């Protein structure tokens, strides 16, 4: 037996979400079915609103208003010669909270992970390399200290061997296997201050 097509369409769409299997997709679809119409309309509108208003920053690939720069890239008080490369948008907030960094960011939207099929071409690496044509003096590779984060840092440090460019990594002190997002501000700040150079 199959569901009425409009319901099946929702199940299929939800089933494409990361970490959502067919069972969960069905459960969420039935739940949505039971909600008041205006609640579901609000959800649909908010999704539409997000996609039409927001996109990725043309420079750093962080979330930004469509067709423009994110607030950090647009801020000319930020040091444009230093780029802190992170895995995901929440990591930008974590480094910002530490208060130890005054340059700009680059968001890769992932790290190398063969098991999940994440290869270098799925990451925003080309965009990072294009930025090196500008006045960049240092790139800080700030990933979670786990196997995938370490591999990505090693991969980039080799790729970024450009004359005059310093590539560095935060000093050890980040919790092993811990998420950057949850690292405490002081520890993260100190790790960035005491970063060590991988290549220059």
């Amino acid at each position: 037996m199959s569901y009425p097509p409009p319901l099946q369409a929702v199940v299929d769409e939800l089933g494409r979400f990361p970490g959502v299997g067919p069972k969960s997709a069905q459960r969420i679809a039935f739940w949505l079915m039971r909600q008041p119409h205006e609640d579901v309309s609000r959800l649909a509108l908010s999704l539409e609103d997000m996609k039409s208003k927001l996109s990725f920053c043309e420079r750093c690939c962080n979330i930004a208003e469509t067709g423009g720069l994110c607030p950090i890239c647009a801020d000319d008080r930020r040091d444009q010669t230093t780029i802190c490369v992170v895995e995901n948008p929440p990591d930008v907030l974590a480094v910002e909270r530490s208060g130890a960094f005054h340059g700009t960011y680059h968001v890769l939207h992932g790290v190398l992970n063969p098991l999940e099929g994440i290869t270098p071409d799925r990451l925003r690496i080309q965009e990072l390399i294009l930025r090196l044509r500008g006045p960049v003096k240092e790139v800080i590779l700030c990933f979670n200290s786990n196997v995938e984060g370490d591999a990505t840092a090693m991969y980039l440090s080799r790729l970024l061997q450009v004359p005059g460019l310093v590539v560095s990594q935060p000093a050890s002190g980040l919790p092993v296997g811990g998420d950057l997002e949850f690292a405490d501000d002081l520890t993260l700040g100190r790790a960035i201050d005491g970063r060590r150079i991988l290549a220059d």
Partner: protein
Amino acid sequence: MGLHELTLRNFRLFSEFTFTPDHGAITVFFSPNGTGKTSVLEAVFALATGSSFRTSAAGDLIKTSEQVAEIHGVLFQQTRRIQVDLVLTKGVRNTTKKMLVNGQRPKSRALLSEVLPLTVFTPEGVDIVRRGPEPRRMFLTNLLTDVNPNTADRIEKFDQVLVQRNAFLRSLQGDTPRTTQQKELDVWDEEFCEAATHIIEIRLQLLEKLRPLVTNYYHAISESSLDVGVLYERSWQGQLRDALRDALHHDMFRGFSTVGPQRDDILLTLSGRDARRQASQGEQRSLALALRLAGHELVRHERGLDPLLLLDDVFSELDPQRSERLLQLLPVGQTLVTTASPLPSSMNPSAIIDLSEALL
């Protein structure tokens, strides 16, 4: 340190079963029809390691026609009370395991080794001498974390790198890596070599300490003075980095890494003879016992505590002399015993639990 209470729910043949073993004493499990005894020890083992010593399929641990099995343990570490819960749930494709220590997901295996180091003797224990390398590697890995729980991080790191490198090899689908892929492979190879170096280093250090103990125990159990060899055998020659490169073509087709610590072995010898192929059954049994006893003693020596001892139907496989000698060599500590044959005369259990009612 000790197991204070264990509860099983829908585990193997048990619907619901709770027992409270005595601290620092011997508890014997007995069931007339011979079923279910081992399950109790298996549950303790699962609680300590997250896996079974009998089968690799976690689904087999769940009672037939049930969906969820639970094991709850209460442990004491000095005055600290530790609750460990393991819940196994049958899924569509596979069984999921959820482990909680004091209500929280443990960050690594280290925590379990810290609170519940184990020494297990089973009739299959002789496999460590007789069979392929897997039981010997598993013995080493479990012993490493029991002796020093801090090593669990390095072991886990190596396992994760291995999984990623293997996934990368499979992604090549048998084609020679293109330039960009080669750069990625170089990174995984380097991570692999670094993690492997750490693993081999701690394994060699462990064997260095284990070797004299194995020799002493072997001599005591077998009442002989044969020369006992415990040698680490690498699965490659020369530099690991070069070996990985040489094996690449082969590994690409197989989809996994064929050289590295995950394929290494321990060569056990008696007077220079390979104990796996050229020793008598009695010699093999004595050597298997000596290895476990040596591991037990090493944990005691390094950590100043007694690992929980699980003796599963061990005496039926040993002649009376070896049984008595094993008992004399075992240090006193908390011990759980199952037996189908009469217990050796010198064993003094503090409790004998009849499982026939629990299994109705």
